Structures are given as C-alpha cells and as structure tokens.
C-alpha cells in the first residue's frame, strides 16, 4: 500500500488559492506532486458535477480551495461553494465514497505555507484511505 500514490484534482480559485499555490512554488516549499490543479475564476464556479466527474474519471481525492469567507473577489462565491461542497459530500457518502476524499479549504494568496501543508496532509490521508473504490471500475 505504501507504493500507492493518490491522484488529487484540486480546484483553486484564481484570486486566492491559485496565487497561494504560486506562492508555495516561489517560496520553494516542498509538497507532494500528487495534485493536478485546475484554476477556476471562483470557488463558487465548482459544481457538484465537477467533483462527481473527477471521481468518475478515477480521482482518489478532490480538493476545492477558495478565498477565506468574507474575502471572496465576487463577494459571496465562496459561500455558494461551501453549500455546493456540502451537498456533494452528502451525495458522495450515499454513493459509498468516504467523505474525507472531498476537502474544502480556504487558502489566501499569502498562505503559500498553508497550501503546501494542505497538500501534504491530504496526500497522506488519501494514502491511508487507499485507492478510490471507483478507480478499479473505470
């Protein structure tokens, strides 16, 4: 099981979390290379379908990252995101996917260290959970 490298799809908002990922890069913080980052203009753009589709295509975990509540570039996009992630996680549980495979984090543009730490802990957690049950099927 130790050789298992989880595949993570990370949706990062343009204004905070993607910049946070950039900062982690330029600050040379080390973190595991398991995530494929998809930049979205706002975390509120992330629909349940994006997350479901990621799992359908074999992702082991999905991270949704946006601006802290109150800091959204579009005022309340991240609040919408919070609601959508909540219902998606409910749906995932019904389908038999561990809720921990879907994570929501608020990462600001200045939190490069938090981005790297999130990646480390999420990768570690997914390694312990093992491959997604939908992986084999696809």
């Amino acid at each position, binding site marked *: 099981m130790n050789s298992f490298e989880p595949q993570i799809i990370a949706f990062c908002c343009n204004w905070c979390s993607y910049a946070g990922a950039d900062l982690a890069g330029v600050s040379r913080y080390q973190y595991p290379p398991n995530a494929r980052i998809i930049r979205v203009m706002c975390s509120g753009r992330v*629909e*349940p*379908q*994006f997350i*479901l*589709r990621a*799992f*359908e295509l074999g992702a082991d975990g999905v991270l949704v990252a946006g601006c802290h509540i109150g800091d959204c570039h579009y005022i309340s996009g991240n609040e919408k995101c919070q*609601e959508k992630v909540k*219902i998606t996680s*409910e*749906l995932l*549980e*019904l*389908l*038999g*996917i561990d809720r921990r495979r879907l994570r929501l984090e608020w990462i600001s543009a200045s939190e490069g260290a938090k981005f790297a730490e999130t990646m480390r802990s999420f990768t570690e957690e997914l390694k312990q959970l093992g491959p997604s*049950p*939908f992986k084999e*099927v696809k």
Partner: protein
Amino acid sequence: MAGLDELIEETGAHDCVECGKCTSVCPVARINPKFAPRLIVLRVLEGVSDSLSKDKDIWSCITCEMCNDMCPYEVNYSGFILGLRTRAIKAGNLPDCSQSGAVHTYQRLMTSGVKQNRLKWVTPEMKIKERGDVFYFTGCAVHLGALFSDKAGELKNTPANYVRILNAAGIEPVVSNDEVCCGHDLLWAGDEDSMLKLMDKNVEVIRKSGAKTVVFSCPECLRTFEIDYQDFLGDFDFELVHMSEFLLDLIDKGKLSFDSNGGKITYHDSCRLGRHLGIYDPPRDLISALGMELIEMQNNKEKAGCCGVNAFANCGEVSQKLQLDRLLEATATGADEMLTFCPKCVIHFNCLLKSPKLPVPHEKVKILVREFGNVLAEHLQKKGDR
C-alpha cells in the same frame, strides 16, 4: 442495436399520416412553433437530414406522451424518440443536461458495484427486512433531496415516510442497500448501456430478496420496470405495484387510516404515472381517504400539464413556460398544496418557484409543491389512536 428501420417498424412510425394532431396537443410545439413530433418522424422517414447526428429536436421533446395519447394511428412517438436518442449519442448528438449532468453522473457511478451507503435514513424504530414478500423500491429520492436540498430538500424524508406508513399498516418491507437507480434518466438521455447494467443489478437484488411484490413510490422507477425492463427481460415473476394502489388496498382492508383536519389539495398527474402507466384514480382516492378536499386543475388526468423537463435534459425557456402554466393552473384552484408522486416534478416546479427568475410576482403562484408521501405521513393515524 437494431437499425432505424426496425425502430420505425416497432413504434409504428410508418403509420403516421401527418395529420398534425400530435402537434396540436404537444406542449413544446405550443411554445416553440418550429417543433413538431410529426416532423421529427418525417425527417427520419424521408432521410432529408442526418437526424441522428444533427437533429436537436429529439432532445427538446419532453416525452410527456400527449402525442401518443392523441394519435389516431397509435404511433408510439415517445418510443420513437427514445430509440432515436440511444442512437443519437453514438453519433455524437448529445443533450444539454442540467446541473452539467450531475444527476446522470451519480447514477452512472452506481453501475460500478461499489458498496453504497444509501440507507442512512433508516432509524432503529423502523421495521425493515432483508428478505420478505414486499420489496419497497425507494428510488433516488434521498440522492435528489441531497443534490437539490435548496429546492426540494424534503425529498430526503420520502423513503423514511413511506416505510413509516407501511409499518403502521403492519407491513415490514424489504429495503435494500444494494438497490441502485432504475436508470430512467440515463435511458432517456440516450445511455442505454448504463441503464442495462443498473437493470441487471436491481433485478438480482429483488430476486435475492424473495419478494413477490415490488412497491414503487416513484412513477419513473415504476415505468422503467414495467415497460423498459420487461421489454428487455420479458415478464417478471414478481408483481409491480404503485404505492398509491398498494396503500389504497391496505386502507380498504382497514389496516391503515389517515386523519387530517381537512384542507384543500390539488393533484398533479406526472406523465410517467398518468399517460405512460394509466394510473389516474388511486392517487385521487388516497386524497379522499386523507379526508381532504381534492380540487382538480383545469387540465387533469390525460390532459395534465407537464413539469417541463425530461431526464434533466434541455431545461430552458420552454420548460419554464410549461412550469409556470401549470403553477398558475394550480394556484387558480385555490388549493394550498399541489401533490404529486414524482420527485422530478417536485424538483422542477420548486426550481421555478424558488428562482429569482420567476417571471411573475411570487403572490401569483401561491402554491406548495410537495411529494405525496411526505404529506401522507403527516396525517398518519397510529394504531393506538384509532
């Protein structure tokens, strides 16, 4: 898959005499004058255009079967559309699905056989069994309630409420964690292959339970079992019953009773339960059994209006207008609530009702659209009270 010729043969499309009666009743054609059921058939018959890969009208049809009901030559238009759809997606002609297709994706994920956790709603006081005579097919109500929690969150309680009602009548139904979606939405969105996988799983689960009767609350599930599954598998050796018929029987036998303080109700015939399956009276009798007054809408039974969306495909202007028409009709009855068995109808109507884009002031559509079972459960009389 059989060719187009066979589809034309099976659905009687050759019998179309282009009288246009289908178009005269088609709710989509009323709003979009370029759309007509007979023209879709004509285009395929004459081969004037490459219907399969280009014709978007096959996705605009809401498959409400008004046309089937009206056609003097009994052409099965909805069956024809269904057959075209399964062929069209192979030719790259895809529907525009609402929610970007989230509903179809979660249903497709169920084909995988991954162990689900779908019975979270079962509480210790509910009596359910793993094997028994009566299987309650819960359908997707809980999933849809989760996905549309802002519009129709109440659907999450639907299966639990039906189990409570059945329990009150002394019935311990089989409810299975291995049940999967019936595949209705996938089938009508053209994905027959996934539907067939789901069908095999469901039939296996029901056979294993030893059930003699399968009860459905969702009209779409019942239609899929009754018509589509049996088309593929031949007649089942178990009985398929709609919840309304099953509950009425229990009321007749004196095992179940409801008590309400009156109230005015109107009933919406969903297309699957009504025109597709011909079940019109049992839900109405149930409302009488509830002790509530049923006020019919102007268009009811065979002529009932539509919730405007089929299989979560192509929701748009036409859908909104159809929804609004129906909601205005329901409001005109003066009833407080509009009941329907179909969870999709509940979602689509509430989607417009709760939308900031509602084209009329909210006071003009003062009606609550609710799933039948959730209302029934509120008026359930416990054994001790009788």
